């Protein structure tokens, strides 16, 4: 099957609808020309040897050997619904809750964060209870809000470091349905420390107690700043706060669609009814279960990422380009060139980088952190593409 010889589509936006016409690729069609017959089944190839995909914040190493073994061992469960399989969704839910000293009622699973974010809009927002989000933050909640007729208040990121402006978001939160607080933030990579987050949460809890705060910690594991810690504890303490997590990033399971939210019983109880019945697949559950048993693996991945992230940041800063203080597995760089131009330039060399991120799409690029080998090759490409683009070591965030 020609499919087996096709590489992945590169410049994929995780938030895009799978039907978006601009997105349907000629490769897919190509793959089906002619042959359906006695063909070998396809396998999902890694990116071509000479192609570097650093556009979607994926973990280039995947979920690791424990998870891969667990998948192989549980192939025989493919015919069982997740409540009947050897590793059930309830068991995983209970296991995750246990990590936080919580109960199953404090946790809801989802096939990745996409569903959780959308269900959050449904559960907590309304035409008279807006969504609050950073202006330059993960886009999906805003899109979902628009679909459901929920007004959106966006708050500009801080000029000096492109971090979320918690003070102004706190103001905007009064009377809102939900605050979407992406921490660490995508795409800027910045993270607020535990004190700032706790202050924010306390303020909103006091001044606007029926405003909910969703802290999206998709990149939680990659943070190295010691002033940061996860807000899961806050979520168990404050009714109006809950945290969403994913296994797509540090856990390397973007392909397996596994995520969860953790929070108070009442809050999760408002979110859970919107969950898609049997949403999580059994092989992904097996992989998650194995990974939770292998914390060393995650620790190693975090170290690996930190090293390669530093290498990549050093490259840009050394070349005179300002970048945010990234606490994730991607960096946000002021290339002083439109993101589209940078992206297209890199694509010519088979390096795929991130999409446009308004309002910084004329000057900033998001680049995911691949393997050290990939980033060594990628930075050579960046050097060429940037060419004589003006450096901007002096000031942050100004166009």
């Amino acid at each position, binding site marked *: *099957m020609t*499919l087996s010889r096709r590489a992945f*589509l590169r410049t*994929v936006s*995780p938030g*895009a*609808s*799978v*039907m978006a016409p601009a997105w349907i*690729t000629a*490769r*897919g*069609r190509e*793959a*089906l020309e002619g042959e*359906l017959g*006695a*063909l070998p*089944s*396809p*396998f*999902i190839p*890694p990116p071509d040897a000479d192609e570097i995909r650093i556009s979607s914040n*994926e973990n280039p*190493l*995947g*979920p690791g*050997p424990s998870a891969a073994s667990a*998948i*192989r061992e*549980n192939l*025989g*469960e*493919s*015919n*069982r*619904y*997740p*409540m*009947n*399989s*050897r590793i059930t*969704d309830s*068991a995983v839910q209970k296991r995750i809750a246990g990590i936080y000293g919580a109960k199953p009622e404090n946790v809801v699973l989802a*096939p990745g964060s*996409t569903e959780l974010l*959308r269900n959050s809009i449904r559960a907590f927002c309304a035409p008279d209870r807006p969504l609050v989000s950073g202006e330059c933050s993960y886009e999906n909640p805003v899109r979902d809000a628009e*679909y459901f007729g929920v007004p959106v208040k966006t708050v500009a990121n801080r000029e000096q470091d492109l971090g979320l402006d918690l003070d102004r978001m706190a103001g905007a939160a009064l009377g809102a349905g939900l605050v979407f607080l992406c921490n660490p933030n995508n795409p800027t990579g910045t993270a607020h420390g535990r004190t700032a987050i706790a202050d924010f949460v306390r303020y909103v809890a006091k001044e606007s107690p029926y405003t909910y705060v969703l802290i999206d910690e998709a990149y939680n594991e990659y943070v190295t700043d010691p002033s940061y810690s996860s807000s899961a504890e806050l979520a168990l303490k404050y009714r109006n706060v809950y945290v969403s997590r994913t296994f797509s990033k540090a856990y*390397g*399971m*973007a*392909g*397996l*669609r596994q995520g969860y939210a953790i929070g108070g019983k009442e809050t999760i109880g408002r979110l859970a*009814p919107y969950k*898609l*019945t049997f949403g999580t*697949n059994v*092989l*992904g559950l097996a992989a998650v279960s194995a990974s939770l048993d292998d914390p060393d693996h995650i620790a190693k991945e975090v170290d690996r990422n930190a090293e390669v992230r530093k290498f990549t940041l050093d490259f840009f800063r050394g070349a005179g380009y300002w970048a945010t203080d990234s606490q994730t597995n991607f960096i946000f760089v002021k290339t002083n060139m439109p993101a589209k131009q940078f992206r297209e330039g890199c694509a010519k060399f088979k390096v795929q980088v991130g999409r446009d991120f308004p309002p910084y799409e004329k000057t900033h690029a998001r680049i995911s952190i691949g393997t050290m080998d990939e980033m060594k090759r990628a930075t050579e490409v960046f050097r060429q593409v940037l060419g004589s683009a003006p450096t901007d070591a002096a000031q942050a965030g100004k166009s």
Partner: protein
Amino acid sequence: MSLSRRDFVRTLGVGAAGAYAAGFVSSRRREAIAFAAQTGMPAHQVINLSNNENPMGPGQSVLDAIERALGPTGASAGRYPFAYATPLQELIAKKWKVKPENVLLGAGSTQILVNATHVYSSREKAVVGSLPTYEECFGYASLIGSRTKAVPLTSDFRMDLDKTMYALKGSGMLFYCNPNNPVSTLVNPSESKEFLTRALKANKDLRILVDEAYIDYVTTPGHETMIPMAVQEPRLIVARTFSKAYGMAGLRVGYAIAHQSTIKELDKFHLGNTLSGLSYAAVIAALERDAADPAYIPNEGKRNAEARAFTLKWFADRGYKATDAQTNFTFVDVAMPVEYFQAACAKEGILVGRPFPPLWTHCRISIGTMEEMQRAVQVFDKVLAASKAQAA
């Protein structure tokens, strides 16, 4: 599928009946409905006939494809799999001789049912379905505050088309599950086509979702899919799944086939990014196998038909009435409240289906392997005999 892989069944409580509120908010939508009893029995002795799963699994070529997709290091599982939506849509389209624009993928047909209910029902525009039917559409409708209308079955447990026609007035969507879950009965294609056509003509705002989850298990000769009608008729949608005859309930893949404009409407609400990369590889392999070995799924149908016939005969020989089963499950009047039958069977390591109000004494029993059914009926014998002795 190998019983030795089964863990101990955990207790979820047999309180499911209490969860059936008047508004059909189905506890199925919470997990706990798929009851279990703590049997204390070793895993390999438990036979699960409660959720219409295919005991044969997806087939070796599919399992091989999943392994190949995973690769030696599993690195591919770290990549978003969205690129596979297009080739899969195209394979499905090719199989049914439709266009990719006529296909919408979902994480199980569950997602399709939810999607359609969301788009086509409201407080004013009811979801109509039989009483009982598969609960997903009614459950979701209750969640979002859409009206629901449940239409009693005929005396032989078929969908009552005349009564349904009456209920369709002013309604938003008809959920037409054919063959019907849990009753296992079929409306034949000519009657279906005539009814569906008449229903659409009489109700200009009505949409009809035809759920063909079990169609591969139909043995009534001359049965046909409504897919060709669906691509022509913008108000008709067919839902299909890989969970049953294709044996992939755990991999969560289903799809809808409909007119291009209908797919576009559904897609506006549709939540993307729910399918796993390994699931894509699995169903792509299954569809390629369909093309290379068109007897495979029909053979699975034959295997099921044999075990089903055995099971039906066993009950019939002892005077227990079952419906005319056209799926991979039977619906039998066990002459006692289903919860009791369920709990008693579970104690002996046989898991059977949940209650389906208002048919309080009918048990839905999935069809496992012939060997599993031979063991299961021994337990049924014991449980039914004990009940008879008590009644005497």
